[in-house]
């Protein structure tokens, strides 16, 4: 069975890029969220195997999403996406239950590599 993914990013461009990359390696993108609130609700509703989570969202930080997901017992693998120069975020994310991280900008190949590492 193909792995199910939830993509969280406020930019349509990034969402599309990530979706294409993951679909190309046989993953199924169940849903895409553009803000923290719907990201959290969709995570519990769709129960994906993997979540790619951008840190800067319009209503909250990806870190906030991460904390809620983990404190409510969600076990999906979570890859934190952060921008260059935000290394503190990465550290904080890994402490709070992220499985991997990737720094923007990244290529499709880099993303696939990180994904395959955690899954």
């Amino acid at each position, binding site marked *: 069975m193909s792995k199910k993914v939830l993509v969280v990013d406020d930019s349509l461009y990034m969402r599309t890029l990530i979706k294409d990359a993951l679909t190309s390696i046989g993953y199924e993108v169940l849903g895409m969220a553009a803000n*923290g*609130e*719907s*990201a*959290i*609700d969709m995570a*519990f*509703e769709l129960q994906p195997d993997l979540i790619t989570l951008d840190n800067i969202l319009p*209503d*909250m*930080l990806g870190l*906030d*999403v991460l*904390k*809620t997901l983990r404190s*409510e017992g969600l076990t999906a693998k979570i890859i934190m996406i952060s921008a260059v120069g935000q290394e503190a975020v990465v550290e904080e994310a890994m402490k709070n239950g992220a499985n991997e991280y990737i720094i923007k900008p990244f290529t499709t190949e880099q993303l696939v590599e990180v994904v395959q590492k955690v899954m």
Partner: protein
Amino acid sequence: MKDDELREIFFTEAQEQYDELNRLFVELEQNKQDKQIIDSLFRLLHTLKANAGGMGFEQLAQFAHILEDVFGEIKKGHLHINSELFNTLFRANDVLGAMIQHLKDPEHHEAPKYRGIKTKLEVLVRKTRAQATPPAEETPASDETQPAREAAPPATGIPSKEKKSRRPLKIEDEATTVAAEEQLHLSDSIHVPVKKLDNLLNLVGELIIEKDRIINLYEQLTAQRKGYNTEMTHIQRLTNELQHAVMSIRLVQVGTLFKKFHRIVRDVANEEGKHVRLVLKGMENEIDRNILQIISESLVHLVRNAISHGIETEDERVKQRKPGQGIITLSAETVKEEVRIQVSDDGRGIDVEKIKQKALQKGLISPEEAKRMPPEQLIQLIFLPGFSSADTVTKISGRGVGMDVVKRAIERVGGQIDIESTLGKGTTFTLILPLSMAVKSTLLFQLDDITYAIPLAYTSAVSTFRKSDIHYVRNGLAANFLGKSISVVFLKDIFSLKSIQNPDKQFIVKSFEETPDDALFPTIIINYDQKEIGIIVDRLLQQKEIVEKPLGTLLKDAHFVSGATILGTGEVCLVLDVPGIMHFLFKQIRSYQNSNA
């Protein structure tokens, strides 16, 4: 107290709190700076949180807690309500309501998605607190540590220093008061689950039936004596008082339902992009709780309709020199044993001509009928099944609930619905409802030696016709009654039909033709839907208050009978389903006309 009782009380209260939250939210939207509203919201959420915590509803408690925190920040002036925040809060309130519904009845109400919005609010509170904490002043203690503030009366105008110095004093005060009073005060009213009241009323109903039997027996045994002796009179009076006492416990103010409409009107008006104000009148009028529950959906439907079809857009209204804001009025008044609830709008009114065209188009009436029908009958066509499948489906009104469904719900509680409309001025729906469903005033009559009851709510008069008073018309029989020609029909002919779907075409004149020329016909004049029909029976008996019982599931498909009661003689007495009979008759009359046409 038993756990399930506590649970019921919690939910009753939670529902009230949620209604109140909704009302306050609507008010807050108009006055975003109103401190009193914010205080009330804060307090309500605090109570709800504490109660939910007590019940072990952790998710609900936590959710109320975060909302309480947000209002705490707003109270402190750290957070300003703009429309974006307001919308989030409004949505959060919806989630809160859905959580309560889900906890109460998980089978019918899905668990709402709450985690996303909860995190959003948490982040908001955290950010606000981080920004707002001034270095030296108050420590950012959570609200949990300051319950005293909430208990204190709203102190105004007292400089903060003085307030601080007063606090310990206040606590001492309270301590001495408690010590001085040995008795603790409990609330003067108690919550009782409706189920218990239903049961009580049921028992009273049985008691009344037994009382009638005893009095009946007594009369037979002491046939020589006239009237009751004192004991019988006492029993009669006590049971009557008991019945009324129990019925009055079940009465609730219509305001409990009306208040919920602030939110509904706001939402629908927003959805439709209209400017609407809700006016509530006669909130203190009382009605049986179950009746109110059953008609609530109809009322929602009428109000939605009034906004989406009745009220015009602001531009349109201004063009017609009306105030830009439309007005929906919900009012109630008690007239004798009836409660009249009206839903009015000051909108465009109903175009009777359009109704006629639509009914013709859908084949609900024939062209001849259309010509003959006066406007007040044409407008009634909106209540026909199949009429109100709207051509334009909006998000609000296009729900597939027709006016026929509304009408049926109201008839189910023994009520009637009426409509009045003036083009350009507005429309008013009037719901005429009984105060109580439990006891019905009826008229007893006999047919083939069997006693039946017909609810007085539908009867306008009784009369006795001679055979010569009655004449043939092309679709049956008619008689002159008070200067008007009304249709008459023998109930016997309806009851002896072999098939209701395909009745024998001549059934309506059968009994008439078989009776001798000097026969007298006791007739009950029924008034239904602005139409009068005379129902001919064998013998009219007396008026009687009865306790109607449903027929039960085995007989749920029975036609023309809505329920049954037991008479003093021990005889089972069926209660006529007047709307059912009238619908059947109108259908027959229409089909004759159409086949003759």
